[in-house]
């Protein structure tokens, strides 16, 4: 079996388990929906419709949603030593990271779809470049997933990991959140060149952090 097939198998297993027990996705969707609903109340309707404000809150919500989903996923793995059973398999560590990233990206895409639609409808945002926005969201999600999975793995055996994961992850995520916010805001306001430039930067982040994760996680999970 190839490494890609093993990654696909782990991702498929992850998504099947989440489908049966969708605690992580439900919590993440609820979280981002409440955030969008509160947004206009907190910052006022005029400010909430600002492209940069709406995009920033959306991406901050998505980053925290990614942490919620990933921590829930690894909590499930730690029960009954399911994680140990996977990492002792030949190629298990690499497949664990790749599969988790792929599954998280899929689940985040669903959360982003719900959060994005709610933002567009409830905040009545103007959307000038929908395809560009879709591109920014896709590469933004792909850039978030490897950082969050790596971070959760590094804090996996720590008792205070629920507190440490956001503390460790957010400094690393700041450049990506800036790029994703600026890219989404550019797509909302019709600046195609800026949207594509930010999407390119996010794609670079996705590649770099996937390579770092594939190098770091198999050793860290020893």
């Amino acid at each position, binding site marked *: *079996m190839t490494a890609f097939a*093993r990654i696909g*198998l782990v991702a498929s*297993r992850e998504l*099947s*388990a*989440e*489908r*049966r*027990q969708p605690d992580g996705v439900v919590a993440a969707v609820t979280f981002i929906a409440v955030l969008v609903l509160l947004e206009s109340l907190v910052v006022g309707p005029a400010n909430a419709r600002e492209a940069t404000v709406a995009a920033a809150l959306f991406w901050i919500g998505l980053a925290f949603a990614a942490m919620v989903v990933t921590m829930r996923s690894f909590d*499930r*793995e730690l*029960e*009954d*030593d*399911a994680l*140990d*059973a996977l990492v002792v*398999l*030949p190629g*298990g560590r690499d*497949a664990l990271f790749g599969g988790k990233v792929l599954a998280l990206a899929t689940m985040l895409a669903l959360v982003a779809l719900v959060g994005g639609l709610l933002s567009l409808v409830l905040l009545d945002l103007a959307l000038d470049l929908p395809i560009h926005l879709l591109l920014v969201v896709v590469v933004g999600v792909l850039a978030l997933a490897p950082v969050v999975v790596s971070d959760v793995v590094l804090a996996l055996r720590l008792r205070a990991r629920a507190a440490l994961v956001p503390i460790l992850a957010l400094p690393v995520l700041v450049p990506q959140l800036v790029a994703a916010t600026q890219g989404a805001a550019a797509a909302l306001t019709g600046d195609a060149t800026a949207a594509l430039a930010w999407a390119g930067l996010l794609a670079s982040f996705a590649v770099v952090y996937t390579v770092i994760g594939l190098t770091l996680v198999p050793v860290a999970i020893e």
Partner: protein
Amino acid sequence: MLLRGLTARENLTFFARFRGGASDAVAGALADWGLADRADRPVETLSAGERRRASLARLDAEAMPLVLLDEPFADLDEDATTRLAAAIGRASEDGRAVLVATHGHHELDGKGARRVAIAVGGLVTA
């Protein structure tokens, strides 16, 4: 050793496929361990004993070259103990290396096992 949210059959099929083997042996393994009628229930709805048997059924479902078992007979009833001893015997006959750490003395009698006794951190008999 089983992931919650998946059924016993899905768990065993995952491990069998991960090793690149066929998943045909899974149904037989689950039946041999008395789990045929519970194979499609999520593992978190099984009793502790059933989950233990489902984990041990991996012995028959996968072609693992090396098997390490730490106190595998602990908390097993007589029927499951007999099944496990038979499964260890089959794995050994298939040419797989099986290393069992146990406080029991007689579970593997007649299975061709080489016995090594360790006490207070030292080798007593080999």
